[in-house]
């Protein structure tokens, strides 16, 4: 740290003063265009916000746009001009998702609890409408007494048995004299005096009103079933505001709203399937900590997870570095060709490659057993399955390490290792004391990010072993399961999707990775201080 600070002012003085570019016409025009684009996009984004009455969002949009315009039109605040884009992106793509995840973790958001209570009530009532036993189906024509787009809707229905035609609206059904209507061959009314018949296009524009219209009858109500048929239906369940409950219209049984669980629950504990999203406080977090299905195999999974991430990162690094060094030597002929060949696995989609590797490890039909004439049940035993996934990671990951190591090696002046050799250091000594430390300064941050990535490398497991092998007494946790695949199975495998619970788990995993990364970066800073 001190070294860089000492070096700072000296280099500053040596560098020529930056040119004054602000006067260039092209620059000015481009600047005006881009700011114009910013305004245009802001205006475009504002309309839906206004339409949906999201005033807070609109306020944020206006303030951000105004601030940006001010920032880039004033000659002052030069550092901020550089910082603003990055900050906005950081907020959008890092801070916002993290906050959203965190807020989800405090809810019961998931299958059966996705929408609002209002939506749940609507769903329960809609699902309970059944045809009145023994009732007729009617041929239906949607009509209006006024303008096709806005006039009051009327259902013109024909009783298939009696051929009696009637007109119905929310007030009820009244018969129409047969002389005033024309009935088509299918039984549908094609014309009626005093009514304008809506064609399908006009009717579909008023779809919501048609679906909502129920013509009351003695046994229930006539509702539409599409645009050409109507039936007499009865809602089996209705929401009662006084008791905040759902009441069964025939048996009288009630299910009372329970805001703690976000569902309608009967006195005997019976729960209606359609629930809603509520805040559940810390219960998702306490469930992670107290659920024995998680707690028992947690330590074992964590240890393997660390081993997997370390082996994947370390293995690819060592292999990549060895290859990079081998090809770094100027004595190797055709270096470019070798390099291209070595990078090939990196160029292939890892998705497809993982599936190909999975099939290569098949006991009876896999390439590996066929090639070596062996009969290893690769994914059947813990040790062989773990070895297999690490081998796959090695193959997929070494080209990346090879690339970055090649780059970093080329940045180290050859004079350094030559000088050390003249001073009497062996090749190994020179590598260990000169090359490797210089490499590590450049590569450690990459190794840390690679570790963090492999720690949560969902695809590597899910597309190969899917966590197998599983012990006979616990089908929920397998030998190659990482925390992320294991918790994915818990959150999404059993009771449908449980996003709230999954969010709580991912916060725990985030904490583990954050701690590991923080410790590693702290150690990296030591390296930089020594060698900078």
């Amino acid at each position, binding site marked *: 740290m001190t070294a860089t600070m000492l070096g700072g002012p000296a280099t500053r003085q040596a560098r020529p003063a*930056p*040119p004054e*570019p602000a006067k260039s016409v092209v*620059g000015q025009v*481009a*600047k005006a265009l*881009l700011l114009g*684009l*910013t305004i245009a996009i*802001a205006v*475009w*984004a504002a*309309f*839906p916000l206004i339409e949906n009455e999201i005033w807070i*969002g609109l306020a944020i949009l206006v303030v*951000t746009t105004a601030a940006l315009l001010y920032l880039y039109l004033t000659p002052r605040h030069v550092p901020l*001009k*550089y910082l*603003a*884009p990055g900050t*906005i*992106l950081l907020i*959008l793509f890092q801070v916002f998702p993290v906050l959203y995840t965190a807020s989800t973790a405090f809810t019961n958001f998931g*299958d*059966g609890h996705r*929408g609002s209570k209002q939506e749940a009530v609507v*769903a329960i009532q809609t*699902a309970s*409408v*059944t045809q009145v036993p023994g009732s007729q*189906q009617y041929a239906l024509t949607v009509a209006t007494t006024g303008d096709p787009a806005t006039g009051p809707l009327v259902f013109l229905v024909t009783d298939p048995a009696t051929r009696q035609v009637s007109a119905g609206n929310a007030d009820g059904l009244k018969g129409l004299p047969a002389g005033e209507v024309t009935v088509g061959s299918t039984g549908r009314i094609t014309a009626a005096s005093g009514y304008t018949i809506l*064609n*399908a*296009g006009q*009717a*579909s*524009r008023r*779809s919501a009103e*048609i679906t909502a219209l129920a013509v009351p009858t003695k046994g229930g109500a006539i509702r*539409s*079933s*599409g*645009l050409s*048929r109507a*039936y007499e*239906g009865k809602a089996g369940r209705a929401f009662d505001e006084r008791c905040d409950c759902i009441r069964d219209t025939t048996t009288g049984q009630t299910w009372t709203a329970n805001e703690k669980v976000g569902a309608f629950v009967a006195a005997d504990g019976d729960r209606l*399937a*359609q629930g809603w999203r509520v805040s559940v406080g810390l219960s998702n977090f306490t469930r992670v900590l107290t659920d024995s299905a998680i707690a028992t195999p947690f330590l074992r999974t964590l240890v393997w997870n660390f081993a997997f991430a370390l082996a994947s990162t370390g293995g690819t690094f060592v292999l990549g570095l060895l290859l990079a060094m081998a090809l770094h030597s100027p004595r190797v002929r055709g270096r470019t060709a070798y390099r291209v060949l070595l990078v090939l696995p990196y160029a292939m989609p890892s998705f497809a490659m993982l599936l190909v590797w999975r*099939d290569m490890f*098949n006991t*009876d*039909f896999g390439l590996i057993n066929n090639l070596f004439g062996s009969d290893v049940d690769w994914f*059947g035993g813990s040790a062989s399955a773990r070895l297999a996934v690490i081998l796959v990671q090695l193959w997929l990951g070494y080209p990346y390490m090879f690339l970055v190591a090649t780059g970093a090696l080329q940045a180290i002046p050859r004079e350094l290792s030559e000088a050390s050799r003249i001073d009497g250091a062996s090749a190994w000594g020179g590598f260990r004391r000169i090359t490797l430390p210089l490499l590590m300064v450049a590569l450690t941050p990459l190794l840390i990010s690679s570790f963090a990535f492999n720690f949560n490398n969902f695809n590597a497991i899910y597309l190969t072993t899917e966590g197998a092998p*599983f012990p*006979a*007494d616990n*089908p929920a946790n397998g030998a190659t399961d990482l925390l992320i695949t294991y918790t994915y199975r818990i959150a999404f495998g*059993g009771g*449908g*999707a449980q996003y709230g619970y999954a969010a709580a788990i991912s916060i725990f995993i985030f904490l583990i990775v954050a701690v590991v990364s923080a410790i590693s970066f702290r150690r990296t800073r030591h390296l930089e201080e020594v060698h900078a």
Partner: protein
Amino acid sequence: MNKTAASLAAALTCALALSGCGSSDSPSAGEKAEPKTNGELVIWADDKRSAALKPFADKFGAENGVTVKVQAISKDQQTTFVTASQQGSGPDVMVGAHDWIGNLVQNGAVDPVQLSPDQTNGLNPNALKAVTFNGQTYGVPYAMENLALIRNTDLAPKAPATIEDLITEATKAKTPEKLCLQVGQNGDAYHLYPLYSSAGGYLFGTSANGDYDPKDLGVGKPGSVKAFQKIATLGEKGDKALKRSITPENSIATFTAKKCAFLVSGPWAITDVKKANIKYDISPVPGFAGGQPARPFLGVQTFYVASKGKNKALAQEFVTNYVTTPELAVALYEAEPRPPALTAAFDQVKGKDADLEKFVTAGKDGLPLPAVPEMAAIWDPFGKAEAAIVGGADPVKTITAAGKTISAAIK
């Protein structure tokens, strides 16, 4: 980088960021305006079926003076549908499997349909039963599918009556594998179910009205233990008829490569079998000698009316009054040969395709795949228990643990 360039880059980034902000804040941008412009029906289906649906959708649109859009959803149709519905960007009509119903209902994603007696009489009763959930009909079925035993008649001329016969025949045929029934590393409950049911196991009991009762879980009960003890005799430590190395990816390919004489699969396998020029015949999946009949699961492809669609009246019209016509069912059959659920359509195509009748016969004892949401808790633990037992694990311990895991997830 000079200052102008830097500030240009900065301004551009801000513009992009703002546009991201705009679109993320307003998922419903423009949707509110749509109904005003024209009556529009949006249908979601998978790739194959959207292609087959297109001409009929256009015809329906032209007849009714509305625009019909068919959109192909190639992956995770159910999740995509539920999530999009909740956000208000879902379709009006969804095409999918009937066993989604439980989950779609608990998420308020689909509306019941009211079919006339004529319409219900025209449907295969098994298919109609499959789309009935809590006494309501949630969609119109158009095709059915179930497992059957497909055999290479050159290698095995006679259809085996029992699984024991099958093993004798397979041994005589001297193929490298005895039976191509996909198990895979983590099991496959769907393909195992005929054998499991024949050996006396069940998943959920049925309540008085014939619906599945999630409170009566059959996995972990003595019947399931006995069933898996029988299945274990077919496993890698026994007859080697069931092997984990036969996976969903290679089971059909192994059969078409003549490495096994018997394949347990559905109508979707026939295209490949025909392409490989194999002489084949289709018969019911055999059960254990002296056991109960082997019951395959019935899957039913269904048209759903989306609850949160913008044009529900038109969607109801399309699903209840248009999908129930034979022309559409025949076209969908031609896109992928599965037996149509509409009796009239089935009668039309069965003369052309002898396999259809055989698949329907094989599904005679079939059970509709449970549509209760609790079924989600079964697949994974049940499959893993299967894989472990096929690999030689102790059936008692394994299936008891699976039952515990499942009942903990259902609660």
